[in-house]
């Protein structure tokens, strides 16, 4: 079985959990005998290609004169602007271009019809444009490649998936790692993103959601028929790196690690810290990460007068994350809405007991974690206090937790996915 997979990022150059999940999944698929060609907008060339073939969309030349191209993208404007080279074309300049196009003059000025799009890595300022250009490239790749099925990860790649489906006629599986409801909350939805998500899910032959929580959102909020939505929990990429437990300070350390955004509930972490510190001042709380709620959180900590016990590390990566886990006694994830949430698993692998919110997908697969409602700061404080003061409890969680996580294998997830693929190919 051959799969053409569209992603946005891939290790080692990642900005979130999506890249790691794609890596684990493709590796797992390879072990189950599924060949994957992984397409991404901007490959760096140092990605691990042992289990997967990487195609860099920035290298693909597309022919805008071809019949397929014209049929799929009849309204596409052929202005090949590398947006990052001239980032601020003024509005006047923009309308000039548009007006000329209307008169049919501008098209003549382009030499030939073949062009390449160079994508920036990550999530640039012209994300929407990149998303559409990616779809154009995807159509070209779908023409060249030989495959049985298309798999697209998150809304950024759905248009690419749909384009590939139209070109090839092969079935499309879309994979939901997060929905707009998780990212922005019910009342701040971005209509365009929501629309693209719905477009992708509707066009897909099967939809994979990373948790039952997410599956319900897909069914209820996007109106997708339940029978084509499958839960496919994430797993962990095994790692032989040993995390050294080494502490710099005598006090116990309780850690929050993640983006400091509304969705992750950092403000509940602060309120919980206050509750714990009232009972036991010999604890240090660390908020590791950065995000749009940072200023609010710092001010709140200052207001509560606990900044001698509450620390900020800023955004951490690589070795610093391991160092942080190595120092932690409890890991807290008070997410308000978390489609899955892979970081508690990394904490558990480092033998750190975790307290996670019931509103996270990962709560569905874990036994050895304390689960609380995100808003219940008393229960969270209680759990933290317990883990800090009853060694029997924390040891149990540390040992069993590590074992549990090591049993969450991508190979098993891929096996389930293969079944979904097979079902889809039979159009059941």
């Amino acid at each position, binding site marked *: 079985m051959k799969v053409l997979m569209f992603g946005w990022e891939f290790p080692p150059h990642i900005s979130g959990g999506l890249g790691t999940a794609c890596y684990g999944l493709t590796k797992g698929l390879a072990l189950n005998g599924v060949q994957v060609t992984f397409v991404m907008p901007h490959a760096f060339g140092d990605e691990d290609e042992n289990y997967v073939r990487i195609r860099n969309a920035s290298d693909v030349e597309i022919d805008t004169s071809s019949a397929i191209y014209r049929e799929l993208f009849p309204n596409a404007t052929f202005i090949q602007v590398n947006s990052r080279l001239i980032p601020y074309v003024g509005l006047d300049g923009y309308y000039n271009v548009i007006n000329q196009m209307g008169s049919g003059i501008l098209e003549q000025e382009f030499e030939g019809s073949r062009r390449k799009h160079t994508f920036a890595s990550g999530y640039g300022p012209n994300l929407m444009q990149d998303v559409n250009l990616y779809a154009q490239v995807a159509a070209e790749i779908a023409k060249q490649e030989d495959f049985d099925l298309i798999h697209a990860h998150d809304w950024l790649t759905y248009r690419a998936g749909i384009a590939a489906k139209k070109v090839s006629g092969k079935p499309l599986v879309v994979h939901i790692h997060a929905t707009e409801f998780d990212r922005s909350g019910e009342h701040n939805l971005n209509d365009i993103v929501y629309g693209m998500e719905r477009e992708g899910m509707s066009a897909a032959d099967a939809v994979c959601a990373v948790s039952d929580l997410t599956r319900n959102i897909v069914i209820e909020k996007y109106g997708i028929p339940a029978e084509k939505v499958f839960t496919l929990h994430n797993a962990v990429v095994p790692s032989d790196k040993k995390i050294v437990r080494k502490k*710099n300070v005598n006090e116990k350390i309780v850690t929050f690690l993640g983006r400091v955004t509304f969705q992750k509930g950092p403000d509940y972490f602060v309120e919980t810290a206050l509750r714990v510190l009232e009972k036991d001042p010999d604890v240090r709380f660390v908020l590791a990460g950065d995000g749009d709620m940072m200023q609010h959180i710092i*001010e709140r900590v200052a207001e509560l007068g606990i900044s001698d016990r509450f620390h*900020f590390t800023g955004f951490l990566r690589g070795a610093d994350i391991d160092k942080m886990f190595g120092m932690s006694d409890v890991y807290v994830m008070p997410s308000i809405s978390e489609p899955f949430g892979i970081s508690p698993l990394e904490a558990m692998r480092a033998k750190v007991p975790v307290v996670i919110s019931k509103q996270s997908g990962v709560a569905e697969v874990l036994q050895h974690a304390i689960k609380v409602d995100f808003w219940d700061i008393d229960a969270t404080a209680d759990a933290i206090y317990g883990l800090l003061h009853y060694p029997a409890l924390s040891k149990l969680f540390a040992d069993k937790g590590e074992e549990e996580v090591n049993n969450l294998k991508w190979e098993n997830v891929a096996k389930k996915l293969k079944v979904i693929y097979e079902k889809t190919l039979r159009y059941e």
Partner: protein
Amino acid sequence: MNRICFHFQISQPFRLRTYRFFDINQEHDYFDEYQNHYLAQRLAERCYLPANKMMLELIKRYPDNFKLSFSISGSSIMLFKNYCPEVIDSFKKLLATGCVEITGSTYTHSIASLHGKDAFLEQVRLQEKLLKETFDVKPVSFCNTEVIYSDEIGEWLGEAGYQVVLTEGARHILGWKSPQYLYCNPYQTDVKLLLRSYRLCDDITLRFNDRSWDQYPLTAEKYLRFLDNTKSSSDAPFINLFWDYETIGEHYTEDTGIFDFFRSLVARLAAHPNYSFITPKEVLDMDISPATMHAPWPISCSGEEKDTNEWIGNVLQQEAFNQLFKLEDLYKSSKNEAAKLSWLRLQGADHFNFMSSKWFGHRFVKRNFEVYSSPYQAFINYMNVLNDIKIQLEKKK
């Protein structure tokens, strides 16, 4: 006869390096040696050395008619000793003329006076010790950090033996009264107050090079006219002009003409029959009875408000301030001299200045050396350092 009192403040801080959470209880070098070295030398070259040279020449040219005073924070003296000892020598030369007074100040440009008597007088005492060691002087006049002053601070200084205090001629305190008279503390009438005529000072500090100002360009002739105009009557005896010394050569570089301006101004004033220069302590020899001035809340030279919001105005600054002075007892009991010195340095007004949101979007001359991307970054870094100092102070009790 009008007395002109020139006073220059020097208060370079030991700037903090980026000190991360992971450094806590691991590294105890909190200060950015490269930055501190670089800035001390740059200021020495652009301001202190050439300005001192100019002042020395002026004193030699007008030996009977030109005097001035300085306050130099302990941290500045330490920076000079470490990185540019020739600055110390040039101050010694100035002192040797007998026309220069060095006033007392805080040891680390500290805002301890906003916290309490003990912490403040500790700063005062340490600075006296350093001034004795370095310049062999014992000050009787005092210029607090950013001329912060209140009735209470004045009383403390009186107890510590000071007889003249320099502070701001803050309009909200003075009301209809003029800053050009001699005042005293209402509870310790032996403590005389010299009040800064901030409008005249700001004409140089803020407007010297401001092309949109209707008085631009400012010449010594014009400035003399300003001085003449501010005299309400001939018995208004004092015009007190206090500036940051960095105004000459750093805030306004040599090519703006700032040096020539001062040369010319001093020449005109020295030759003028209606003006004579004094230094703060000379007030004590004069037979003038002071009026009382009440300052129930601390005043300073900050902004238009002349209050202390620039340092402890927002919630970040208040928290940092509270956490800092929570360690006062630890400081007293600790034997860890390095950590104790660091704690003193963390009292510096500049650290709190970086956490200020008062000047959001408004670059003020005093914040020429911006190091943090936001007040929040400044707060995080400061608290990381403070938390380590706390551990170090606790350790070697």
